[in-house]
């Protein structure tokens, strides 16, 4: 048993503070300690992307980061992107365009897609497929995920233009 560490995180805008063993992976911190269960555990080997969260502006697989590494960081999960009463345009688009079937990969997909659209608000199909390559879906065949992200991009760009 190693010495517990005092860790501070800002998760979805809320300050969190706790003691944890250094070997605690961030995905377990989120799901089991903080009860933020949007990010899922899929493969647990850095391949599937179901556990994707945004940490200090980067998409990260939270199964491959210790909570101690994230000490002091800002973390955004799907819960911080949108919820039942305030769906994010990506969530709307995934619903509208059937971008999911079982839904297991969806929180990671949308969290990653939100970062992708931030970096590239007008991605081509190829850029979407390349930018989403770290997220695996076993249901959709990806076609509808690409469609959903394209639709969300159009929607978000129109909203941005209307606001200007």
């Amino acid at each position, binding site marked *: 048993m190693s010495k517990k560490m005092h860790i501070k995180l800002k998760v979805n805008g809320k300050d969190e503070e706790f003691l944890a063993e250094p070997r605690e992976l961030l995905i377990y911190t989120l799901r089991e300690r903080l009860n933020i269960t949007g990010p899922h555990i899929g493969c647990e080997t850095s391949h599937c992307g179901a556990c994707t969260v945004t940490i200090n502006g980067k998409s990260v697989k939270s199964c491959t*980061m210790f909570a101690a590494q994230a000490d002091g960081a800002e973390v955004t999960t799907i819960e911080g992107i949108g919820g039942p009463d305030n769906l994010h345009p990506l969530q709307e688009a995934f619903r509208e365009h059937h971008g999911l079937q079982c839904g297991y990969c969806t929180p990671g997909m949308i969290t990653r897609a939100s970062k992708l659209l931030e970096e590239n608000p007008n991605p081509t199909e190829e850029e979407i497929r390349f930018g989403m390559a770290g997220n695996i879906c076993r249901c959709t065949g990806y076609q509808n995920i690409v469609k959903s992200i394209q639709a969300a991009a159009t929607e978000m760009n129109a909203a941005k233009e209307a606001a200007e």
Partner: protein
Amino acid sequence: MIPVAFEYYRPKDMAGVLSLLEEHGDDARVMAGGHSLIPMMKLRMADVSHLIDLQDVDGMSEIEIDNDAIRIGAMVTQADIIDHPELAKVAPILREAALQIADPQVRYMGTVGGNVANGDPGNDMPGLMQCLDANFTVIGPDDEREIPARDFYEAAYMTAREDEEVLTAVTIPRPAGGYAYEKQKRKIGDYATAAAAVQIVKDGDKCASASIAMTNLSDTPIYSEAAGAALVGTSVDDAALTAAVAAMWGDIDPTEDNRGPVAFKNHVAGIILRRAIERAWSRA
């Protein structure tokens, strides 16, 4: 998958890192992005009692380009390489290779230093750095030294870096001529079945010099001097390509694993090298 318990440190400077390494010897490991080390710890293939996180140590996240050389700090990520327009102009092979490593999430975290220092024959940067004749800077308790990439790799996970040393930077002479990084993999995020890094300089319609290195076809990256030599003085025609591939086969030593039997790996290595040379030549 939970790793065995360990102590975690996040020193603020290199002196702090080096004193921890001295204190704990080979029970300690430094970590940059952690995307090779953490999976190994989770699978309990790496036993690390003292984990030293380098993220708070300054001075290892810069890309510096001058007239002769490019210096890349060990903590520069694959994403940083991809997003650096000047680097893409000066050494486009780095970007071409980085885009073929893992996936976007992993590229945000995975670093150049971790990739070259880890000594995993599957990593792409070691072969690339051998092709580019890079030097690795390592710092130890007493001094700093440079180790050529072509002398760095001894066996899988065994390198010329001593346990109490930290790899801090990679320095590359500015590459000249045409380039290609060609990689065959089973899926996104997989290591190469075979990969080839090629830089070729053209003089008139003849090849003036060529540098070739192969990835994941031995227990170390393979710099194939003979394959490069087979191209020099030729017009890189079919006979020269065949000779270069044959020379490369003499240098690699693949083993059978879940990416295929030896004959298949040799076959793929030949195809990949041929494609890489052709593309590099077309850009020379």
